[in-house]
């Protein structure tokens, strides 16, 4: 290493260096054509600008397409596409990095485009867009043909000429640019626009579409390789013929279309049949139709005649069947009668069964049984009572006999008793009389005795007996007051007296003095 000189070198700030570089680069590379492969492309940013890289085997550079430029690009950026980009180099002082701002971009040669085409073809084929099963059948004779192409030039003229040669039709041309940046979008919109027409609307809806363009380079025909055109064609409900370029030109639209025509003129031939031929066909058919009908009729007529001749006489035909019919009729009436008879019998049996099981019959039967039972019950009851009555009568007789016997027995016994009573009675009478006599004797004796010891005897001896008004014996003077009536009994009779004084005083003489004559006092 060599030590660098220090003193006279100019010092730069980073900003100064960055600024100087920016000026130098932008002056030097204000317009460059740069060939490289697109890398890191992820579609336009939401701002509308597109950022990606351009690279080759050894180097890479950041690239940007501003929004305004992007919509004008002939070739849309596509990952892996080799392009020639035209633009200028700018730098970012803040990062000391540089980039290319692309103004124009085109594919880098046919090889690159072919590679892109092949890649897209594979992708859409994988999606099934080219499948045969998707292909729609073209109408044999379309009424309205929609053509998507440029309204001027040889192509539309060729198509219309060939159509009018073959079969003049109603043609609707949807004018589009067939080349250039907006071409693909216009073609796609035209296909969708035809499909959007309502059936029976003011503008007649085509029943066949032709997308046509004259010959050109691969780049010229590129619109018909664009995905939006291919998807519009794939979703078209109207059958579509592609007629792009010459016989040798191939676009992806040819794969998607329901039919590929080699040229625009060829498309017209595929689109309609030749009217004159059709007329001939129809006429030939009409002739065959008439002849066939006539022949058929003629043959029928011949058949009829032949059959009519072979037809036997109606009477002969009818004789045997009629005989059979007569016999059958006879048998029929007999059979009918037998049948009716059998049915009637069955009906009678059935109604008998039915009647037996009818409720009235059932009721009657039950009532009958009930009456029988009732009758038996009554009879049984009567018999029962009769038997009882008989038994009671027998018992009564037996009882009566027994009772009479008993009574007789008792009568006998009573008689015996009675005799014994009489016996006793006689004896009682005798005893009683004897006793009576004895008593009477004793009484007489007692009387004598009584006379001897009675109060009369006392009275005879001078005593008197005082009795009150009631006859009671007065045993005490205190029972008497002045005025009381007394009866005084004497041995020879009695006399009435009245008490006229008080009782004499006690233990005094005067008590003795007032003693009435004949009173008790006098007894002492």
């Amino acid at each position, binding site marked *: 290493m060599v030590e660098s000189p220090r003193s006279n070198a100019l010092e730069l700030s980073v900003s100064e260096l960055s600024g100087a570089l920016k000026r130098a680069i932008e002056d030097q590379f204000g317009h460059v054509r740069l060939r490289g492969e697109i890398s890191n492309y992820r579609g336009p940013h939401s701002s509308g600008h597109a950022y990606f890289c351009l690279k080759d085997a050894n180097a890479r550079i950041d690239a940007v397409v501003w929004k305004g430029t992007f919509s004008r690009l002939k070739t849309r950026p596509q990952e892996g596409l080799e392009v020639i980009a035209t633009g200028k180099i700018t730098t970012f002082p803040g990062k000391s990095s540089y980039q290319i701002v692309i103004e124009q971009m085109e594919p880098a040669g046919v090889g690159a485009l072919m590679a892109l085409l092949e890649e897209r073809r594979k992708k859409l084929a994988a999606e099934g867009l080219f499948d045969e099963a998707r292909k729609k059948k073209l109408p044999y004779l379309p009424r309205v043909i929609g053509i998507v192409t440029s309204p001027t030039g040889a192509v*539309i*003229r060729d198509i219309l000429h060939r159509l009018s040669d073959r079969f003049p039709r*109603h043609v609707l*041309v949807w004018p589009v640019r067939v080349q250039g940046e907006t071409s693909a979008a216009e073609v796609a919109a035209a296909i969708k*626009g035809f499909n959007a027409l309502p059936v029976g609307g003011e*503008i007649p809806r085509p029943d066949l579409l032709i997308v046509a363009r004259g010959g050109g380079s691969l780049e010229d025909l590129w619109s018909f390789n664009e995905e939006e055109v291919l998807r519009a064609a794939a979703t078209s409900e109207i059958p579509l013929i592609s007629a792009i370029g010459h016989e040798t030109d191939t676009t992806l639209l040819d794969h998607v279309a329901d039919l590929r025509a080699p040229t625009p003129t060829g498309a017209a031939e595929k689109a309609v049949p030749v009217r004159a031929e059709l007329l001939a066909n129809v006429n030939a058919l009409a002739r065959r*139709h008439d002849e066939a009908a006539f022949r058929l009729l003629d*043959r029928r007529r011949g058949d009829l005649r032949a059959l009519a001749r072979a037809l036997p006489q109606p009477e002969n035909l009818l004789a045997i069947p009629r005989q059979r019919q007569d016999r059958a009729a006879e048998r029929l009436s007999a059979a009918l009668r037998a049948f009716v008879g059998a049915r009637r019998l069955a009906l009678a049996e059935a109604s008998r069964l039915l009647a037996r099981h009818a409720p009235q019959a059932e009721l009657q039967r039950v009532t009958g049984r009930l009456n029988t039972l009732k009758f038996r019950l009554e009879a049984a009851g009567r018999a029962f009572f009769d038997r009882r009555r008989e038994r009671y009568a027998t018992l009564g007789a037996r009882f009566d006999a027994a009772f009479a016997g008993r009574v007789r027995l008792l009568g006998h016994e009573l008689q015996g008793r009675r005799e014994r009573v009489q016996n006793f009675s006689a004896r009682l009478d005798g005893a009683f009389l004897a006793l009576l006599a004895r008593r009477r004797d004793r009484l007489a004796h007692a009387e004598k005795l009584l006379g001897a010891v009675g109060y009369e005897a006392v009275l005879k001896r001078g005593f008197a007996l005082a009795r009150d008004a009631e006859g009671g014996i007065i045993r005490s003077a205190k029972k008497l007051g002045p005025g009381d009536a007394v009866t005084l009994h004497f041995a020879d009779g009695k006399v009435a007296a009245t008490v006229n004084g008080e009782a004499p005083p006690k233990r005094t003489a005067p008590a003795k003095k007032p003693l009435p004559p004949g009173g008790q006092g006098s007894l002492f």
Partner: protein
Amino acid sequence: MQTKDSPLTFEAAMRELEEIVTALEKGNVDLDKSIALYERGEQLKKHCDALLKNAEARIEKIVQGADGAAKGVEKLDVE
């Protein structure tokens, strides 16, 4: 046989007419049916003729509205 919405196409009419002719030529149809077939064949023939006669060239150009959809048509002169 022909309604406004879905007219019988030329192709279908031709096919049916051919079938009818073939059936009549074979001759194995009932008489009643053959008459009906014949009448139907006549109708088809007329229909095909009509379709073939209606062969007027009419060339028009779509006029787009502001939204890009078809707004109307105008005559297109190519020559």
